[in-house]
């Protein structure tokens, strides 16, 4: 099924939802972004469905808008990564399952302005929505193998790379704003007491932020790529979290965003948990 066919199906579904009053608002994609990227489009009447679009330029993640509209019944056109983001919100008590109508769309990845597949989409193996109220399928798309199996589960730590990446960072916090996992009322970096800012406002602060955020996202990242997409300075924001995500899948058998009922991996334990990297424990592979 081509993008066109999927798009028509999406329009039909959304129109229907609003006509029947099953939702108050629908969030989807429409034209009008920079470089031909589609923008988020929210509407409340069946006629509004006409302006919906669906193609390879639907790069924005709509799950964060579902969170914004969490107090009303909302329908969301959701790529699999968006579905995972919404499942995460539900699992963390931020969204009610009954309040969101998930229109899960099969997706083989989005492209940038240059027509090249976006890096996070190229690595993605979750092409079918894991949870949905209605599916918009594309029979040509099949779930890929998890990236973990292609690359080794751990790459040797590269301090120079870390230093280079964070030296580009200007601490604009766009990545935090775009991330569906970051919704704390006051981010730890913005707190006065306790004050996490290190003495050195440059590299030290950036290290605190990126590693601290990574530890908050461990086991929760849904690999949507929004962080890297919005970065103003071209920092490779994803790579440390990506390694941690693969590690957590490898060691604890857990992936975020697939099941609304599951125990979050970092708020659980198994008496037989491995002690990789501990003094006298297992070594990292």
């Amino acid at each position: 099924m081509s993008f066109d066919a999927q798009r028509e199906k999406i329009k039909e579904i959304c129109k229907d939802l609003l006509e029947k009053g099953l939702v108050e608002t629908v969030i989807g994609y429409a034209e009008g972004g920079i470089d031909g990227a589609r923008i988020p489009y929210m509407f409340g009447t069946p006629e509004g469905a006409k302006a919906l679009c669906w193609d390879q330029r639907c790069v924005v993640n709509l799950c964060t808008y579902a969170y914004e509209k969490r107090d009303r019944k909302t329908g969301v056109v959701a790529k699999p990564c968006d579905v995972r983001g919404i499942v995460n919100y539900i699992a963390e008590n931020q969204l009610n399952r009954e309040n969101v109508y998930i229109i899960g769309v099969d997706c083989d990845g989005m492209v940038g302005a240059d027509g090249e597949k976006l890096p996070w989409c190229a690595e993605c193996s979750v092409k079918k929505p894991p949870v949905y109220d209605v599916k918009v399928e594309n029979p040509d798309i099949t779930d890929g193998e998890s990236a973990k199996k292609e690359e080794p589960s751990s790459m040797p730590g590269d301090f120079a790379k870390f230093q280079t990446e964070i030296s580009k960072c200007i601490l604009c916090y766009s990545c935090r704003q775009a991330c569906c996992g970051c919704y704390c009322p006051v981010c730890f970096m913005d707190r006065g007491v306790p004050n996490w800012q290190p003495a050195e406002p440059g590299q030290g602060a950036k290290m605190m932020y990126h590693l601290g955020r990574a530890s908050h996202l461990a086991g929760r990242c849904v690999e949507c790529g929004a962080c890297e997409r919005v970065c103003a300075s071209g920092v490779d924001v994803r790579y440390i979290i990506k390694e941690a995500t693969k590690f957590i899948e490898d060691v604890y058998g857990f992936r975020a965003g697939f099941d609304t009922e599951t125990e979050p991996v970092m708020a659980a334990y198994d008496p037989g948990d491995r002690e990789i990297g501990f003094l006298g424990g297992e070594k990292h592979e």
Partner: protein
Amino acid sequence: MKKPVMVVGGGIAGIQAAADLAEMGIPVFLLESSPSIGGRMAQLDKTFPTNDCSACILAPKVTDCYNHPLVKTFTLSDLEEVRGEAPNFTAVVRKRPRYIDEEKCTGCGDCSSVCPVSVKSEFDMGIGKRKAVYKPYAQAVPNKAVIDNSACRHCKLCEKACRSKAVCYDQEEEVFEIPVSAVVLAPGYDVSSEIPAELGYSKYADVVTSLEYERILSASGPFAGHVQRPSDGKPPKRLAFIQCVGSRDHQCSADYCSAVCCMYAVKEAEITKEHLPEAEGVDIYYMDMRAYGKDFDKYVDSAKAKYGINFIRSRVAETDRDEATGNILLKHADTGGNVHKSEYDMVVLSVGIVPKEENIKLCSRLKVKTDRYGFIWTGEMSAPESSREGIMACGAATGPKDIPETVIEASAAAAAAAKAASKTEVDLFKSYPAFFTEEPMAQVRDVSKEPIRAGVFVCSCGVNIGGYLSVGEVVEYAKSLPFVTFAGEGLYTCSVDFQTVIIDKIKEYGLNRIVVASCTPRTHEPLFQGVLQKAGLNPYLLTMANIRDQCSWVHMEDANAATFKAKELVRMAVGKAVYAKQLSKKKLDVNKAALVIGGGAAGLSSALELSGMGYSVHIVEKTGELGGNAKSLSATMFGRPVGNYLADFIRDAAEDPNITVHLNSKIKDITGFVGNFTTRIEALGSAGVSTEGSPPAECTTMIEHGVVVVAVGASEKKPDAYLYGKSPNVETQLKFEERLKNGDSCLSGVKDVVMILCAGSRDENNPYCSRVCCNQSIKNAIAIKEYNSDINVTVLYREIRSYGLSETFYRRARQKGVQFVRFEDDEKPVVAQKEGFVQVSAIDPLLSRDVAYRADLLLLASAIEPDREGNKTIAQMLKVPMTQEGFFLEAHVKLRPVDFATEGVYLCGLAHNPKNLRESIVQGKAAAARAGTVISKDFIEAEGAIAAIDMDLCVGCGECERVCAYKAITLEEVQARGKAAKKAVLNDVLCKGCGTCAANCRCGAIDVGGFSDMQVINEIEYLLRGDVEAKQGWEPKIIAFLCNWCSYAGADLAGTGRMQYPPNIRVIRVPCSGRINPAYIIKALAEGADGVMVSGCHPGDCHYLTGNMYARRRFTVLKKLLETAGIDPNRVHFTWVSASEGGRFAEVVKEVTDKVGKLGQVRADGQLSPPAGES
């Protein structure tokens, strides 16, 4: 206040009884004949079946008991006489001289180091040595020296060495006459010395007893935990355990079973394998494997499967020594009758428990009955009461038993003593001025609006600190620190006169933050907090810097480094003190009623005890009758008719004005928490009668109460094998007993009886031992033989678990001609129906052939099974956990067998685990005592240093609720910013302050008083942004996060043992490794720490139950993150160090310092230096 109770014996039984009584508001005199409380448990390395470190689980109980304001401890004391009658006893106590002034002694050890006399250490069972002036062991409580006058040469070197002037040669014996309301005897046990000569104990150095081996295994023992042979110090490759030495032996005085040796041998075998993974063989020679307790069978199975320990069913005839190898040869026969000689490097004899000689003398003086072995007699149905009214007895002094049984009996004894005391009234301070003095309450000053004025007091501790670093320099340095208004030094800051100095300075300078740089807060924090209170300051404004156990004692060779480190530790402490808050303990009213769920023997026992202590009780029973399973029992093992006792209990409960019985009633729901429960009960019909034809009327009752006792019992499983239900000749032991009780002529015409044991237990469906069946079958077999000795009785068994004193009945049965034939676990007997009888075929292990037994009556010992569904409903209502087998899971299998982790809820009877009638009754009383510690109070106080949740920052994600082991956090609908939202709500009273919730909270909504985020950050920042003048050259600076209960204690132990290690770590104390937010570690690195080290309790040993489990995952993931970022893995280290691993702590510090040192310095501009080898 009630008249005090006297507890004799400072082992785990005495400590438990004393603590329970004190918590019920009843003052206690605790007598201990040795210089330290702690008893046998302090000598153990680990405990079965959890392999917990014994010292780690014992120490908090010992300190709580000793420090309790209502407990007055007399060490080196014996009870001479008890005159009069309860509750107006006069106890005569003889206190032997310590020859050391307890007020002045600081436990520094200077005296022992100069003492020239070395003798065998009793604590180390003669394997290690001690001096004539000595501390019994490093963690002794009280932590004071004592002089052994018989060994002392009176050279007076210790007197000269003691800077506190604590040595007092002219101390004399004292005799006290103390009025008490009741006496609890818990004087403990000895291990058997009646070892058969042929086992070579006195001949061969490498044949040791189990308690000697326990000391060899122990990290604080004579070999520092290195398993080695006494003869040549080499580690053994092959080790054998010989069971039943001095037990189950008619050649010696102890023909009973010592109840614990099977399990402790398996434990010692497992620990051996852990210490020596390369050991070639660890074999246990046994007759029956008595794994009858909760999780015991699982433990033995794991020993076989996971540890590869061999279990050889054989009684060892003798040992011999191979002259060539020096090894020990064991001569034994296997089950086929063939004789072998097996070679071992070392042999451990599992010696039994015997009564102490002193106990027999004590009982004679007290006119308390002992049994024929010398154990203190307690009534079977009236335990723990002794033969003399007002005197209770508990623990191994009344018969061999393990630690959980001991703790249960001790709590039961506390309940019984509390009942006696409940009728008394005294003015404690007027009537006992020599022992209890009233502390005048000082007016508390609110410092919250004051500018911070910190006072720093640096202790010299005699020469223990002052002799190894410059105290004067540290004081001068402290004066230069921000917020410090006053800094001074003292020779002994904990001494009574210096405490006055501290109070004076507080008043003079208006100090509102106090830093004491001295020894370890683990011993002295309560003391200095008390000083602050006397000066009118909130006690939580105190911060301590450990510059002795973790500084001067471990850096004795480098005064410069030690001084430098002390300055930095003081700086850190000032930083922490800046954010100290005036924490308060929230108070909650307590409803003094109790709810007992279940009207069987355990529930009745509990209710009657609670009522006896003066509380009102509701019993909720789902059937129309009280009595439960006991209704089916005919007689106890000792021949007492159960029916009579049960009828008495039921009548007492029905007539008791304090007790309300709700029959035919179900619990609909229970809400609330400790002190404040509300329960809705629904009853069918009225007074248990349902009217014919009409639907049963339901009536609802609401009960408000403060505590819940879960006594819901269990029931007999109907067997699904051996033709049960299909043959008229087959029935269960319980049914048979019921018929015997009802006078049913079930034995007329019967010629052959066969009994099959384990008929439904210890298999895939019920993989546990039902504990009562062996004894019950033996009892029934004896009854059959006494009815008609011509009836053939054959018992087919897997093990005979007639544990403890009931072993004698096993012998009696055999003497009466009962045949006992073993069958293998996987070769179960086969039953075939014949004309009028059944044929039971079983493979006889000696003949290796099938043998057929004719049975007119086949009795099956069926399993005790919990009501899984019913239990689950109760468990969910009360928020308590269940075991895999479907019973309830107590807070701690060893030391809290009657409590749940959730406060205010208690457990007894079959709902806990299979047990016999006596054990159920005793556990019911224990539950009453534990419940009494709550409802005796007018209000309960929360801890001071607990968590607090900021509603504005909380998003209601629920992670904190998941990780709280005490169920102190629930997500509830609250009003926040004008809207209703679900947020985390903390129940202050349930919170223990571990901080696991805070470390998991990404939004930073939770913080912990006394160990707040800002305090930790300040400790890091004050250290790393400090301007302490460094010595020449760079030295790694490593921040070490240590959990208070295990790792910090292990670090202190390294100090008391003077184990030297590099001076590069700076410790930040946290309540639990679960408290450690990954952000702390990242912050430390970002601030320029060269390395970070984190250590907590070993998984499974966490003081807060599960904090370290969550920490373990957090740290594993953080390690991965840091490594991906290219931060050298050798900068950050995670490990587990227990409270008894002083040596290991020193080794870990050396290893970490070494690794970090090789990496070089972190650069001052916040850039982490590249890994070694790169530029």
